[in-house]
């Protein structure tokens, strides 16, 4: 909890919802939030209060930023109607006020020199990849997208990706679009033909783990944006922790809202995650010990 608070701009704003349109199985929201838009970078997220002033839903919902337009002062989100909080949010009409805190978290690190990059997204986890692709290509990198989802309507960013990236590969679990299977099924071929050195991924934990494994097999580096449940998004609730190997080789349970959401894939202790849970590795700093261990 010490010395890890980023020295980057963050704002809490009463943002006005400018538009709310369907996009596949999701909703595309545009918010007027200049103070959030100006400093934002791909990979960062916002924490949104849901339910209105007298809501029973106290916890913020965190969404990766789809893109921003600093000149227009807008922040765009892609939201899945997945529960009571997001249901309220996607039901808002243009003109409504939305309490937004951001930009939060670490952005995707951009390469120092142009290189081959593969961007991998699962479902609406693909939201920030188009924005990232634009920045990478503007800096001279070769960019390919690999977008996967359970079904065709749960893909996001395919058409926009075809305009932005050098190539787009699509997978669906049921074969309703692209290659039937998972992103990890087509990833080796994409990496091979593009000589990629850098992968960027966002989506479910299991997907991020497999992207990390494939990257390692091709001597590439994977930067992954994790999806952990967060209550606050700003580093005070300690709910979004996960085991990550630090520079000194020690594993710590770190807050994914502050030290993440973007981590080097090879620093994440993926073996700790199983079936919706994450255990504390026995060798993590301060891990519980069997007997008399301080009340764990």
């Amino acid at each position, binding site marked *: *909890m*010490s*010395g890890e*608070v980023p020295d980057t701009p*963050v704002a*809490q704003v009463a943002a006005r919802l400018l538009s709310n349109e369907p996009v596949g199985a999701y909703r595309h929201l545009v918010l007027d939030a200049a103070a959030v838009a100006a400093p934002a970078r791909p990979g960062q997220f916002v924490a949104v*209060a849901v339910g209105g002033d007298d809501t*029973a*839903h*106290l*916890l*913020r919902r965190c969404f990766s930023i789809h893109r921003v337009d600093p000149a227009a002062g807008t922040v765009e989100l892609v939201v899945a109607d997945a529960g009571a*909080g997001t249901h309220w949010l996607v039901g808002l009409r243009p003109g409504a006020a939305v*309490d937004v*805190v951001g930009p939060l978290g670490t952005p995707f690190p951009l390469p120092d020199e142009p290189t081959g990059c593969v961007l991998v997204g699962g479902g609406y986890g693909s939201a920030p990849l188009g924005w990232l692709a634009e920045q990478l290509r503007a800096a001279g990198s070769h960019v390919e997208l690999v977008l996967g989802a359970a079904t065709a309507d749960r893909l996001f960013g395919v058409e926009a990706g075809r305009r932005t990236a050098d190539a787009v590969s699509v997978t669906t679990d049921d074969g309703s679009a692209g290659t039937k299977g998972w992103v990890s099924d087509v990833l080796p071929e994409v990496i091979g033909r593009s000589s990629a050195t850098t992968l960027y991924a966002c989506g479910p934990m299991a997907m991020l783990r497999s992207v990390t494994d494939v990257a390692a097999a091709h001597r590439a580096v994977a930067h992954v944006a994790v999806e*952990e*449940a967060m*209550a*606050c998004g*700003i*580093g*005070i*609730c*300690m*709910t*979004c*922790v*996960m085991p990550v190997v630090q520079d000194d080789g020690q594993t*710590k*349970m770190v807050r994914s809202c*502050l030290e993440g959401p973007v981590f080097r894939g090879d620093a994440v202790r993926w073996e*700790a995650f199983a*079936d*919706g*849970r*994450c*255990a*504390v590795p026995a060798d*993590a*700093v*301060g*891990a*519980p010990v069997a007997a*008399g*261990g*301080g*009340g*764990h």
Partner: protein
Amino acid sequence: MADLSTDLAGAVLPNPLMTASGCAANGRELHRFLDVAGLGAFVTKSVMRGPRSGRGTPRMAETPSGMLNSIGLQGPGIDAFVEDDLPWLASVGARALVSIAGSDAEEFAEVARRLRDSEAFSAVVGVEVNISCPNVANRGLVFACQPDSSAAVLTLVREQLPGVPLFAKLSPDVTDLVLIAEACLAAGADGLTMVNTLLGMAIDLDRMRPHLGGVTGGLSGPAIRPVAVRAIWQVHGAMLTGRLRPAPIIGVGGVHSGRDALELVAAGASAVQVGTATFHDPTSPARVLRELETLLDERGLDLAGAVGLAHERTA
């Protein structure tokens, strides 16, 4: 303008608003949204002897007007706290009410001693003794469930911190709260913080198993405010009738607005902590303070005059 100052066993604070332990980390994170030096006191996350990883995840479940957590007292340990966090709080001019915890009375005492011996101790306006964290594997380790174990902790901490305002943080999950309060005050506590979270549980119906990695967790948020009001009412009432010696109470539990804070004050609290609401609105401790001041002004009351006022108006 209402006089908002409050005297907590010799610690005179300019206003009664505090963060709640475990709901604001150790200051820097929240300082991006409000000036922590503007609060009556900043209450730190409970610090223990060594570094602690806390529990696995999920550590949180949203519940109606509340949340469950099973963090498990994650923290860097007292040495890192006094080397890094406390000096930072001192550097911005914050008054620190330091929350300490331990797995036995000796650990509490050792944490208290290392805190006392630290360079930035001058920033400490008091110590909150967390004898009531529910996120321990053995509920028998919740000291605040029994008078004798509560007293044992307070006695040893008091020995290490003579003259320092000590507040025992109590659990509402007991049969006789006044009995626990009495034991803490007799053993050296100057005041009481009420209440810690209530023990609760949620089931993941997709997987048909406990939702939290820690199985049970602490319930917080507006859902528990009536419990906090009741607890403060009972203990302050016992002081008014002479069953307990008079001592300041810091109220905590579900405060989301100035009205909520005033409710705790009217029940008997001399200061108010804002916890889970900070997750919803990072500026809420400062906002609640402004709202409380307005409400006192509207009623022509100073803070001290409002403390326990509802007891005088009971039918």
